[in-house]
């Protein structure tokens, strides 16, 4: 009796997760793949083949944009790590109590706000008539208005800004768990700041570094707003191309192929990152 009711309870709990994952995650991705390997040969007539993928590799604009998106995302990830690590270290190791909570909150507030608002803020700052251009003119550093929007540096800065929290939070969590006495022991045994960083702090922070990098890379790769708004119409970001194929050109088959390629790339990088650092997806992502 008792085992029957618990059986029933188990299946009742299993049902929602299966519905969610099968209907909204697994089947749609299978569907996406099927559409990506269909070729339109007439109105509502399709045939299976890899023409869409061939089109991707045959057109330099497509694969160059793809490569550019990947490289810029990797660059953004590295930059975010370099900029975010000292901040996370400062919050985790050099502040205590109230100050720590306040700094941590100050880090989080910008990210509760829509990405659109944040990007809009950067537009006001960077454009020709913007705040920074005016400030530089006022200070006499430049003669006329400067346009700082619509270039790769602006995109990069926006990407770093958008994703830095997702680097700082896991880093603060892992660095927090590093016992101060380990650092002291390192010094006591004759270590220098550099060698302690390299041999004690960074190995300990590795899970946080990996999960931060994975999330930042993903967010950059899949970003649409920042490249469009800060990089302009010709920003050449791969998500923009997917959007164009789907919504403007109405070429869903090619768009699906693009989407699938982007998915493959992101999975590959996530997988490689986990393998290189000997972490598993569950231990890096499952501890939010």
């Amino acid at each position, binding site marked *: 009796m008792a085992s029957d009711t618990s059986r029933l309870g188990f299946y009742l709990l299993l049902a929602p997760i299966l519905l969610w994952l099968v209907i909204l995650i697994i089947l749609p991705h299978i569907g996406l793949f099927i559409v990506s390997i269909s070729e339109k040969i007439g109105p509502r007539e399709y045939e299976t083949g890899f023409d869409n993928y061939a089109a991707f590799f045959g057109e330099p604009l497509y694969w160059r944009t793809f490569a550019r998106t990947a490289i810029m995302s990797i660059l953004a990830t590295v930059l975010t790590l370099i900029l975010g690590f000292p901040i996370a270290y400062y919050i985790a190791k050099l502040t205590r109590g109230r100050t720590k909570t306040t700094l941590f909150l100050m880090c989080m507030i910008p990210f509760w706000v829509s990405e659109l608002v944040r990007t809009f803020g950067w537009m006001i700052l960077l454009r020709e008539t913007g705040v920074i251009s005016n400030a530089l003119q006022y200070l006499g550093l430049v003669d006329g208005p400067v346009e700082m929007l619509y270039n790769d540096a602006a995109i990069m800065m926006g990407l770093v800004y958008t994703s830095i929290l997702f680097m700082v939070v896991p880093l603060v969590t892992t660095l927090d768990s590093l016992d101060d*006495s380990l650092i*002291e*022991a390192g*010094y*006591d*045994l*004759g270590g220098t700041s550099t060698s302690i960083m390299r*041999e*004690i702090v960074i190995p300990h922070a590795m899970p946080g570094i990996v999960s931060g990098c994975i999330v930042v890379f993903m967010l950059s790769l899949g970003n649409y707003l920042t490249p469009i708004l800060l990089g302009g119409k010709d920003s050449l970001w791969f998500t923009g191309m997917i959007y164009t194929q789907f919504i403007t050109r109405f070429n869903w088959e090619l768009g699906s192929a693009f989407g699938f390629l982007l998915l493959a790339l992101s999975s590959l990088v996530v997988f490689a990152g986990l393998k290189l650092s000997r972490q598993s997806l569950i231990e890096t992502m499952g501890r939010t």
Partner: protein
Amino acid sequence: MSVPHPDLVCSDLTKDFDAFRAVDHVSFEVPQGSFFSILGPSGCGKTTLLRMIAGFQSPTSGDLRIKGKSMIGVPPNKRPVSMVFQHLALFPTMNIGDNVGFGLRQRGVAKSEIKTRVAEVLERVGLPGVSARRIDQISGGQKQRVAIARCMVLEPDVLLLDEPLGALDLKLREHMKVELKSLQAAFNTTFVYITHDQSEALMMSDNIAVMNNGQFEQIGTPHDVYHAPSSAFVAGFVGDANKINAKVSAVNGAVLTLISDRGSEMKIDAPANGLSVGQSAQVFLRPEAIELGGADDGVNVSRGEVDSVLFNGANSSVTVKDQTGDFLKVALPQTGRFANLRKGDSVFTRWDPKQARCYPAPGA
């Protein structure tokens, strides 16, 4: 002290935290190759003192010399001292060999030499061939030895130990006390050991400093600290003692007559105690200094009734309530003579006037 170059000299060392004085004008010397313990209750300032020696706190005033060289302003990674941390602080991301070799790597010692020296020191602490193991694959006692090996491979002038046995269970702790002492003798390195556990300090040390409220109350051999405590705090903190509040009723040379607050009379032979008639005093009497049985003759003998028998193997004791209502804890010799003692039995207690210690009551 007679040794010409003590390994560690602290003179008038003081540390203030805002309004709070954690260490208050502490001076001491530790001769080469000795085992020096600093014993005190938590919050007495012993950890601050140790961290000043290691370089993790800088003294507000005073001087600290190691092998004759002042350490003021020298960062921790440049001091010839090593520290065994309270929770050992073994690096969990490295294996045992890399942990022990850490300090040598920092000094730029060649790889092959590191390997031999690590193997050597691990053998000396009785753990040959564990280099490749991870930290979580060895037992608590083995971790202690790895932590000591990690310091000793650097051949420090002074090894600091911050209550490293605190986290171990009772059996292992007893075992490690003996082992630490023999490791110290084998390496012939100066050990400075802090603890709040008097039995650790008594068993291992050549000299003990008893610390309270940032000050040293007494520095001496374990025997002195136990049998000739120089203050009421030391008498109460080190070892077990019956504490009796009393008033001095007569002074006859070194012999004092006191009346306890409940009215029982006692005589104490305490030279140079500085007490005068009418003053309040505290009397400390070790449970093992009291004899049971015999008859009603001589000094400091009183008739009482067994209030409870506390059986604890070799450390068994009884509390005896005398006629005035004072309680005395008495150690029970395990010779079998008192095996039948029961609550309510009538007994005599007696003790030698030389065995008790007497100090002016605080605030009197």
